[in-house]
C-alpha cells in the first residue's frame, strides 16, 4: 500500500511533534522534581556553613567554593589552549596530515569515559607531580577533559565566519593576526562562548574524575593545593552512603541553579558584546 504525500506529511509532523514533546516532558520532569525536592532545603545556612556530621547537617559552602575553583582552573587553563588550537586548525594551516592527527586526537579524547581522565589525573598530577588531591589536580584533569569540546566548538564557530571578512581585514591593511582578532574572532565569539558554557557544565557535573583527583574532604579549601569535595561529588556521597537524601536534593537543586545562572550570565555578556555590531 502506498501512502500519498499529504498523509505522509501528516504522519511525519505528528511523529516529530511527539518526539519534541517527549523530550520536553522528560527534561522538565527531572528538573522540576529535583527543584521541588531540593529548593526547600536551600537556606542561608545551607549556603554559608560548611557541612557538619558528614553532611547530615550544616551547609555546603566548602563544596560550592570547591566546585567554582575546580571549574575556574579548568576553564582558565583549557580555553586558551582550545581556542589557540582551533585558530591554528582554521587559519594557520591547510588541511593535511597534521590537522587530521589533531582532529582525530581531539575526537578520541572526547570519547574517553571521564573515569579514565580521573585515573590519568590521579597518576600524573596527584602522584607523579606530587600535587596531591587538590583543586589544582582536579582542575587540570578537568581541563584536559573539556579541551576537545572547546576545540571542536571553536573550530566550527571560526569556520562559519565568511571568508570575505578576512579579505576585508587584509584589504584594509590588517596583518594576519589583526584580521583574526579584529574580524574573525568577534564574529565567532558567540559560538566559542557556547562551547565554553558547555564545558563549564561538564566540569560542574563531573563526579568520578574529580573524586580521584580533588579528593572528597569537607573542609573549606584555603589554597589551590587544598583538597576539596565538589558539589557533584558531595551529592554522590550523600546519596550513595545514604547519609542525607534531603541534603543530597538540596545540593542537586543548587547545582542546577548554578548551571542555569552560568548559562544566563554568559549569554547576557555575549549579547551585550554582539548587539554592538548587529
Amino acid at each position, binding site marked *: 500500500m502506498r501512502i500519498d504525500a499529504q498523509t505522509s506529511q501528516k504522519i511525519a509532523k505528528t511523529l516529530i511533534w511527539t518526539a519534541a514533546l517527549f523530550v520536553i516532558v522528560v527534561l522538565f520532569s527531572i528538573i522540576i522534581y529535583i527543584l521541588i525536592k531540593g529548593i526547600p532545603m536551600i537556606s542561608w545556612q545551607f549556603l554559608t556553613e560548611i557541612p557538619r556530621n558528614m553532611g547530615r547537617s550544616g551547609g555546603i559552602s566548602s563544596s560550592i567554593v570547591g566546585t567554582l575553583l575546580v571549574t575556574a582552573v579548568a576553564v582558565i587553563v583549557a580555553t586558551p589552549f582550545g581556542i589557540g588550537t582551533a585558530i591554528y586548525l582554521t587559519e594557520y594551516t*591547510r588541511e593535511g596530515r597534521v590537522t587530521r592527527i589533531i582532529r582525530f586526537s581531539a575526537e578520541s579524547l572526547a570519547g574517553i569515559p571521564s573515569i579514565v581522565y580521573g585515573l590519568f589525573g590521579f597518576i600524573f598530577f596527584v602522584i607523579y607531580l606530587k600535587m596531591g588531591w587538590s583543586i589544582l589536580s582536579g582542575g587540570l584533569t578537568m581541563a584536559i577533559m573539556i579541551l576537545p569540546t572547546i576545540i571542536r566548538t571553536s573550530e566550527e564557530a571560526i569556520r562559519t565566519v565568511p571568508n*570575505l571578512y578576512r579579505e576585508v*581585514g587584509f*584589504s*584594509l591593511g590588517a596583518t594576519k593576526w589583526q584580521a583574526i582578532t579584529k574580524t574573525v574572532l568577534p564574529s565567532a565569539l558567540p559560538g566559542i562562548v557556547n562551547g565554553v558554557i558547555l564545558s563549564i557544565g561538564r566540569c560542574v557535573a563531573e563526579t568520578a574524575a574529580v573524586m580521584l583527583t580533588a579528593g572528597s574532604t569537607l573542609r573549606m579549601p584555603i589554597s589551590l593545593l587544598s583538597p576539596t569535595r565538589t558539589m557533584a561529588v558531595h551529592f554522590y556521597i550523600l546519596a550513595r552512603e545514604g547519609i542525607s537524601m534531603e541534603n543530597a536534593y538540596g545540593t542537586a537543586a543548587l547545582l542546577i541553579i548554578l548551571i542555569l545562572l552560568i548559562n544566563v550570565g554568559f549569554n547576557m555578556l555575549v549579547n551585550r558584546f554582539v548587539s*554592538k*555590531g548587529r
Partner: protein
Amino acid sequence: MIQQSKIVIKDLNLYYHEKQVVKELNLEIPQNEIFAIIGPSNSGITTTLRTLNRLCDLTFGARQEGEVLLDGKSIFNKNVNVTELRRKVGMVFDVPTPLPMSIFDNVAFGSNLNGKKSKAEVEEGVEKALRMSALWDDVKDRLNTPAARLSGGQQQRLCIARVLALEPEVILLDRPCSALDPISTAKIEDSLIQLKEQFTIIIAPHTIQQAGRIADRVAFMLMGDLIEQGITHEVFSVPKDKRTNDYLTGRFG
C-alpha cells in the same frame, strides 16, 4: 597634457594551480582617471584586481609571472610591505561587507590598525571619508549604530568610505554596484567621478553602461586575453576588434 602612469602592468600571467586565467596582460593605468576593465565573467578581471593589491597571495594555488609597477616600483619585490601596499591600493568588493561593528568603527577600522593616529585624527578622518563617499548626511547622527542596519547602497558607500579613510592612492572596485538598485548605483557613480580628482580608480563595472557613464578609459578582457583598450568613447563608438563590438552590442556576455 602628459599623464603619468600610476600603475604599469607588464606581461602579467596569472594562474590558479595549472589553470591560466590571465594571459600576457599589458596595461598602463593613468593617474587620476577612472579605468574600467570590462568583460564577461570568467575573464580574469577579478583576479587581475586582486593581484594589484596582492590579495591573491591569500588564495591557495594562485601565482603570477610578470611585473606590476606602482609608481615605477615593483609590487612583487621581496622588500614590499604587503600591508602597506594594501593601504595604498584599497579594494571594494562586489558584495557590501560591513564588519559586525558600528558605522564609526567600520570606517575607523584601517586607521585603528596601526594605532598611529590620535583619537581626534581618527574622528576627523572618519568624517572626511564619509563626506567623500556621500554618506555623511545619512549617518552623522547614528555613527554608533551597527553598520548592518544600513541599506545595501549605504553599506557599499560605507565600504568605500572605509577604504578612503586609509588615504589610499589607488582604489580598486570589483563590480561594486552589482547588488545595488539604480538610485544607489547613481550615487556611487557620482562619488567616484568626484573622487578621481584625488585618487586613481580601477573599476570592474557590472554593466557596459556603467563603464560608459564614468570611465575615462576601458580595457576589454575575454577569457584572460586583453582584446582592446583605449579612451572609452573611442572604444565604444569604433571598436577595433570584432569581439569587442560583439560584446558591446550584446551579442554575448
